[in-house]
């Protein structure tokens, strides 16, 4: 519930971002409902339990939209550049068709959010704001509400077949201010898509509905010098459907990623993994909320954090098993290697279980690299820094191995290697 202060902060956020115009009635209703939710919840504040480890101040400062025309240059490089993908480039929160591939991918019907919200499209109506609205069980996610209320740009993807290559959504920001993106994904039965995502809009939300027997894979990189950002993924996984996500998060000032996933159908699989590389005063937060609502669901959370300087990594991971969700298999591991004193890893694992025939486990470790392993490697002539890089690569690999596609996994390994090499 909002206090006077957090309601004021929420009003400030809404005020800074202009109301979209010319939308269909159902879209306006979804916006209005989200505004109401946000004003009732209030903006996140430090004393909220859910924000105990991450100060939301930089995320709740009202920012005007970043200017559209600023970026003429291309958006630089990403670890995905060598992969064959259909790339859609967003600069400062705006789709840049001139920098993008034609939006055409076999098995996928794609449209722009702005256009979709102006029409009466059933799938869009069933998705937009719906998974977000359902994703506040136990805790509010006000920044996602803000996104539903204000986002004007993004993609709507309906996946009816097996997409032969990934779709890459790439975002670059060159100006000061807020960039807001919203993507809607519906994977139909038998459909399959890998979505690559790079860059960090100030506020982004993806709603993904994976129908029975569908497959959705999400690989995301958030690297380099970046402004503070909050990203939410809301996923609903149907019967026998698969959702897999991997995020590589490196450096930047403050990044909060929330993944809210419901295993809604029997025999659903949801895997969420990530590698976090933090130096300087980076603050990198992975917050995961997994709900098991059906029989025989399998969820995995695997997060590896490598930290130096005064970097902070946060992992909040919850497994929530509803009554009747028997034979649930829920697994969670979060680990950190601290390369220098001064860095820290803050962890909050949580299990909440209302079914009696389940197997759920969580574990977490924090420590330095193993001195015996380091000695063994250096005693064979491997220089100290290279030995550290070998051990870090092996450590991060345990998360990267969760990626199905070996080409993508290699790209992630290379990115980890580059980060370690850049330590000098």
């Amino acid at each position, binding site marked *: 519930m909002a206090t006077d202060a957090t309601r004021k902060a929420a009003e400030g956020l809404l005020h800074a971002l202009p109301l979209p115009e010319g939308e269909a009635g159902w879209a306006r209703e979804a916006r209005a409902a989200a505004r109401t939710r946000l004003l009732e919840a209030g903006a996140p504040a430090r004393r909220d339990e859910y924000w105990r480890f991450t100060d939301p101040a930089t995320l709740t400062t009202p920012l005007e939209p970043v200017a559209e025309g600023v970026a003429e240059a291309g958006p630089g490089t990403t670890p995905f550049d060598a992969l064959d993908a259909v790339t859609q480039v967003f600069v400062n929160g705006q789709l840049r068709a001139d920098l993008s591939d034609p939006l055409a991918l076999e098995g996928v019907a794609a449209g722009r959010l702005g256009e979709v919200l102006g029409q009466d499209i059933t799938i869009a109506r069933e998705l937009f704001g719906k998974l977000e609205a359902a994703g506040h069980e136990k805790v509010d996610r006000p920044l996602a509400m803000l996104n539903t209320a204000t986002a004007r740009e993004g993609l709507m993807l309906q996946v009816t077949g097996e997409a032969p290559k990934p779709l890459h959504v790439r975002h670059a920001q060159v100006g000061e201010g807020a960039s807001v993106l919203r993507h809607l994904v519906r994977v139909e039965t038998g459909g399959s898509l890998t979505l690559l995502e790079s860059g960090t809009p100030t506020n982004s939300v993806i709603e993904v509905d994976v129908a029975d027997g569908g497959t959705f894979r999400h690989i995301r990189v958030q690297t380099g010098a970046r402004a503070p950002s909050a990203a939410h993924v809301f996923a609903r996984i149907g019967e026998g459907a698969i959702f897999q996500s991997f995020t590589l998060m490196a450096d930047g000032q403050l990044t909060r990623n929330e993944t809210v996933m419901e295993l809604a159908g029997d025999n659903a699989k949801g895997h969420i993994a990530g590698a976090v590389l933090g130096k300087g005063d980076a603050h990198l937060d992975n917050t995961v909320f997994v709900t098991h609502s059906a029989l025989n669901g399998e969820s995995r959370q695997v997060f590896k954090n490598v930290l130096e300087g005064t970097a902070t990594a946060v992992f909040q991971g919850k497994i929530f098993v509803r009554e009747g969700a028997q034979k649930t298999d829920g697994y969670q591991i979060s680990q950190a290697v601290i390369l220098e004193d001064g860095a820290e890893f803050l962890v909050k694992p949580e299990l909440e279980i209302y079914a009696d025939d389940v197997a759920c486990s969580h574990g977490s470790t924090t420590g330095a690299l193993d001195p015996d392993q380091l000695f*063994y490697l250096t*005693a064979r*002539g491997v220089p100290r820094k290279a030995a550290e890089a070998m051990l870090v690569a092996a450590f991060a690999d345990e998360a990267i191995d969760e990626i199905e596609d070996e080409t993508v996994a290699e790209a992630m390994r290379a990115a980890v290697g580059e980060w370690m090499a850049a330590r000098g």
Partner: protein
Amino acid sequence: MLEIRNLEVSLEEEDKQILKGVNLTVEAGKVHAIMGPNGSGKSTLSYVLAGREGYEVLGGSAELEGENLLEMEAEERAAAGLFLAFQYPVEIPGVNNMTFLRTALNAQRKARGEEEMSAPEFLKLVREKAKELEMAPDMLKRSLNVGFSGGEKKRNEILQMSVLEPRLCILDETDSGLDVDAMKLVSEGVNKLRSPDRGFLVITHYQRLLDHITPDVVHIMADGRIIETGGPELALRVEKEGYGALKAGA
């Protein structure tokens, strides 16, 4: 080749002196054995020479070919030609055995200003040496020492030694955990490396390894010092009479 003079070492954390003035010279082409009871300081000596952290040198010196070992990092000692075959080779999940060895070899070569070895050349060399040690090819592809039996780990140590071709080989309790067949294989691997320009320091608790690797000189270590030095017959005497008798006589 290796010159140790009055070496005194304590544990950094415990302020407990382990080595109390060790004197030892290993000449090129010779095999020196150090025998001694548990806790005599044998393994500490090997770790201090190889550059493990956690020890404080209180006095004395250790030089390899005239270079001061004690001022060098572990990797510099390796590049200078020192090799320690570990008593307990460390398991490193996720680090590929061959990738590791090639990285180590080329890092040493680079440090010495030599040309790096190409991948095909390296592969050929490693396969040849592995075959001599009767190592299954899949051991090369696995994570470093992970899931290896005690004997396999020791064979992997000797494989590394064969590929890296060090000047001075220190074998720390290489016989521990080996059955008779494995001991024979490992010893053969070591004996193949014996050459006029390479020195060996073989640390062992039992005489049995020395049946396979015949030493030129045998030292007995007790309570942080070398208390007796002799020929191979000294090892046999230890086997017969035990360390107690020697200590009493020293």
